[in-house]
């Protein structure tokens, strides 16, 4: 008979348990107090970037009975029944408590005032946002975060994302007192204070009072803070309000043994609500590990909790922080090797045994890139080189070292998957080992292991060039080659093909080499570029005039209608807020375009690997909710980047407020208005693998916005692979979004001036491609169906009517064996 497992709690750990057990013989019922499906609480602060819940949502789990919005109110252990808030009673054979934790709110007078919040759930963030938006203050708003630990800094980051300047108040004498030592914390404080945070350590709030629309916090140090919002994130406590009459641990939490079982053999507890042999854990990785233990027990296994690695590596406010092993050198006789480079902004401390042979732990701040190599060496012999000043940290990792601590995946498991041919890239490794699918911090290590195992993805563009597209771009730029034949003669072999020719044509065009149908370029172009129109399945083309920002006068709309009517073109509104006219033959294209150009239209580059459109909502001009002129900006951007040839097509959109009607976050570069300026999101995508764009900069003015987009686009054009959209490019970029920000915002490579100059010359050299054809008889002459019968239409093309328009008659395709 099927047995029933009831899971109380639908957080990350409960979700993980169900994920492992689904498909097993257990019938699974989940009680979730929040009405939302399970989500990634570790990434909570990123919710502020988009205010889109879906970005955080964990994969939906089928095959279990999910009772969302239903709290488990009591358990009758004698009858083995859980009672829900709706009155429902569910009998269980096994019960798993995964109730998580509750925020600890210190007993400060005034802590219940409106405007005081905790930081734990998506709803908390929504409430904080409502407080911040209601705040009536000129200029930047001010907030206080009580707690300078990991969670407190996360909360401060979330406040910054809402345009609030945060004060962080920490009782201990330093930030992150649990993970980081004094030296590291000193640097951390210096780095985060550059980011508009004010840090008050060694003090606490003694009271909070309301003063009109403000909150006034008095600190024990005597300081008074004038605030709009207060956030408590001073730690968590295991949540045990569901009283089963079970014993609790010394610091709270349902007391369980190493098998995560309470004194009642049918009841287990996992995650933050569990005290495993008396110890509670506030991190997700040990919680996952407990979920695995219970799943194994329920499947008849005997696995026990192996103890937890409480090492952490994270990026807080853009600052790398890592702590592992015995970070505070508490082992008897432990020695510390400290390198504190205040100029470079890096701090590292290694803790070793009294004979300097065994690595015990360490702290890294500012640069934690060596964490992945160091953490697995804890408890093992430490390479002597590490202890030298500037010692290399690139050391061989033992096979049993854990690479992914979220899913406890060892180096051995990963190298096995690679060597047995199960996985040959990061995506496949993620799929078959789960490594890298948690916090993602081990992804660079996965890449490194792939390389170490000899998996090398050829970067050669095609059989004619051993170079990647990015390398060819550099060659063309450095040698100022202007023709494909000169390039392939010197740097390639053979005559070229349909891969390298259009790629080189695109590079030549990005660097400005005149009309793309010039004598030496025309034979390189794919058919769409060659006829400046989009080839359709029957050999005809479609025509898309540019309609910048989607704004069009009635007169121009009428011209499009008349042209479509006169040439019998099927007409459809595109997703990019313009109009596509289908069914034009090669001969008709110049006639059609002469009429369009005369009416003031120009090429929409729908055929090119280049900027398509910049969509917009109606913005402040008409919309009651808009906060900026989205149409004006969209037109400005579309006119600036029109005709810019790139590795793949580029799409953009501008939304006039956070409601995001223009769907900017699905674009290569999307802009969303804020009350203070613009937020720029990059590397979004629709298509096969949808990706929400990442926030690159926020609250910038129009001039700064354009400067950063100039740099972003030029950097992409120079470094991306052929046909690689910005989304895939950013995913593959070493260092990811942070690196991108360092290059195009902070100018770490010192190339921004050059990128801007390149864009300026694109803008000043722009000329409409269709006008260029109409003014050049030689180019015009190429627009004939038949060289021996100009003007005779292609007899294979015919149309039929459908819903009042002409559509192609499907061609009699010869039987082709596939």
């Amino acid at each position, binding site marked *: 008979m099927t047995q029933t497992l009831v899971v109380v709690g639908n957080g990350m750990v409960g979700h993980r348990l169900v994920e492992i057990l689904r498909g097993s013989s257990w019938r699974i019922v989940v009680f979730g107090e929040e009405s939302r499906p399970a989500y990634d609480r570790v990434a909570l602060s990123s919710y502020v970037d988009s205010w889109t819940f879906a970005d955080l949502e964990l994969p939906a789990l089928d095959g279990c009975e999910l009772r969302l919005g239903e709290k488990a109110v009591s358990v009758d252990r004698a009858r083995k029944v859980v009672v829900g808030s709706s009155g429902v009673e569910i009998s269980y054979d096994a019960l798993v408590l995964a109730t998580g934790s509750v925020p600890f709110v210190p007993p400060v007078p005034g802590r219940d005032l409106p405007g005081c919040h905790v930081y734990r759930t998506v709803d908390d963030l929504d409430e904080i946002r409502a407080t911040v938006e209601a705040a009536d203050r000129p200029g930047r708003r001010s907030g206080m975060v009580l707690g300078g630990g990991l969670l407190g800094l996360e909360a401060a980051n979330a406040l910054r994302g809402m345009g609030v300047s945060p004060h962080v108040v920490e009782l201990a004498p330093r930030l992150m007192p649990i993970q980081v030592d004094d030296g590291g914390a000193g640097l951390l404080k210096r780095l985060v204070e550059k980011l508009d945070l004010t840090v008050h350590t060694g003090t606490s709030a003694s009271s909070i009072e309301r003063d009109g629309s403000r909150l006034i916090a008095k600190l024990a140090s005597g300081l008074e803070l004038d605030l709009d919002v207060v956030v408590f994130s001073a730690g968590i406590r295991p949540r045990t309000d569901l009283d089963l009459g079970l014993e609790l641990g010394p610091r709270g939490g349902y007391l369980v043994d190493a098998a995560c079982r309470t004194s009642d053999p049918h009841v287990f507890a996992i995650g933050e609500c569990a005290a495993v042999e008396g110890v509670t854990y506030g991190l997700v990785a040990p919680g996952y590990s407990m979920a695995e233990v219970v799943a194994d027990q329920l499947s008849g296994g005997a696995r026990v909790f192996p103890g937890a690695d409480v090492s952490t590596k994270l990026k807080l406010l853009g600052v790398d922080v890592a702590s592992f092993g015995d970070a505070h050198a508490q082992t008897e006789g432990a020695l510390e090797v400290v390198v504190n480079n205040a100029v470079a902004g890096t701090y590292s401390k290694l803790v070793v045994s009294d004979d300097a042979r065994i690595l015990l732990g360490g702290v890294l701040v500012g640069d934690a890139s060596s964490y992945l190599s160091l953490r697995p060496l804890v408890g093992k012999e430490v390479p002597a080189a590490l202890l030298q000043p500037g010692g290399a940290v690139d050391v061989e990792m033992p096979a049993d070292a854990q690479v992914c601590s979220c899913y406890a995946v060892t180096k051995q498991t990963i190298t096995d998957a690679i060597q047995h041919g199960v996985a040959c890239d990061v995506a496949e490794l993620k799929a078959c080992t789960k490594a890298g699918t948690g916090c993602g911090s081990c992804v660079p290590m996965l890449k490194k292991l792939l390389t170490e195992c000899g998996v090398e993805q050829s970067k050669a563009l095609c*059989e*004619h060039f051993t170079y990647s597209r990015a390398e060819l771009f550099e060659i063309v730029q450095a040698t100022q080659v202007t023709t494909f034949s000169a390039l392939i003669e010197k740097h390639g072999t*053979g*005559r*070229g*093909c*349909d891969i*390298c*020719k*259009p790629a080189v044509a695109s590079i030549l065009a990005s660097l400005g080499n005149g009309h793309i149908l010039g004598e030496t370029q*025309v*034979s*390189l*172009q*794919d*058919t769409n570029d*060659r*006829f400046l129109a989009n*080839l359709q*399945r*029957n*050999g005809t083309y479609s025509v898309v005039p540019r309609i910048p920002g989607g704004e069009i006068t009635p007169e121009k709309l009428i011209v499009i209608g008349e042209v479509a009517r006169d040439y019998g073109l099927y007409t459809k509104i595109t997703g990019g807020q313009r109009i596509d006219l289908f069914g034009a033959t090669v001969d008709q294209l110049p006639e059609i375009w002469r009429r369009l150009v005369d009416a003031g239209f120009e090429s929409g580059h729908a055929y090119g690997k280049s900027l398509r459109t910049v969509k917009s909502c109606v913005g402040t001009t008409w919309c009651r909710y808009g906060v900026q002129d989205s149409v004006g900006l969209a037109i400005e951007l579309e006119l600036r980047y029109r005709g810019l040839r790139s590795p793949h097509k580029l799409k953009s959109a501008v939304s006039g407020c956070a409601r995001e009607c223009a769907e900017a976050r699905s674009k290569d570069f999307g802009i969303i208005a804020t009350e203070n300026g613009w937020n720029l999101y990059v590397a979004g995508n629709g298509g096969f693998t949808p990706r929400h764009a990442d926030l690159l900069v926020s609250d910038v003015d129009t001039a700064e916005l354009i400067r950063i987009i100039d740099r972003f686009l030029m950097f992409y054009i120079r470094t991306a692979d052929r046909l690689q959209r910005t989304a895939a490019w950013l995913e593959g970029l070493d260092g990811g979004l942070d690196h991108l920000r360092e290059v195009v915002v902070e100018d770490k490579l010192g190339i921004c001036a050059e990128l801007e100059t390149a864009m300026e010359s694109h803008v000043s050299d722009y000329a409409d491609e269709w006008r260029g054809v109409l003014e050049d008889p030689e180019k015009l002459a190429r627009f004939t*169906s*038949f*060289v*021996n*019968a100009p003007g*005779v239409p*292609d*007899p*294979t*093309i015919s149309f039929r009517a459908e819903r009042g328009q002409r559509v192609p008659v*499907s*061609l*009699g*395709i*010869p039987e*082709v*064996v*596939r």
Partner: protein
Amino acid sequence: MIVCDFDVLKPEQGVAALRPDGSQVAVFLTADGTVHALDNIDPFSGAAVLSRGIVGDRGGVPVVVSPVYKQAFELATGKCLDEPSVSVAVHQVRVRDGVVELT
């Protein structure tokens, strides 16, 4: 049948010619000066577009690549290199007195 003056052909490009029976031929000039002629209809899409494909080489073999679904056809034999069971007809073509003719 006369296609066009040889000067009209450009290296590594194709043109289409209409035959009296309504069928179409794609004529290509390669970089080494050779002229090739194939059926213009792409067997995979049914569209008369092979003359608009990119001309180049695969492993040294001169090919045209269909602009629709990107299969490569050998210019000398009409054989599809991606689907060996498929091919297009080859037509005899010559250049006489500066004029390209189908024979």
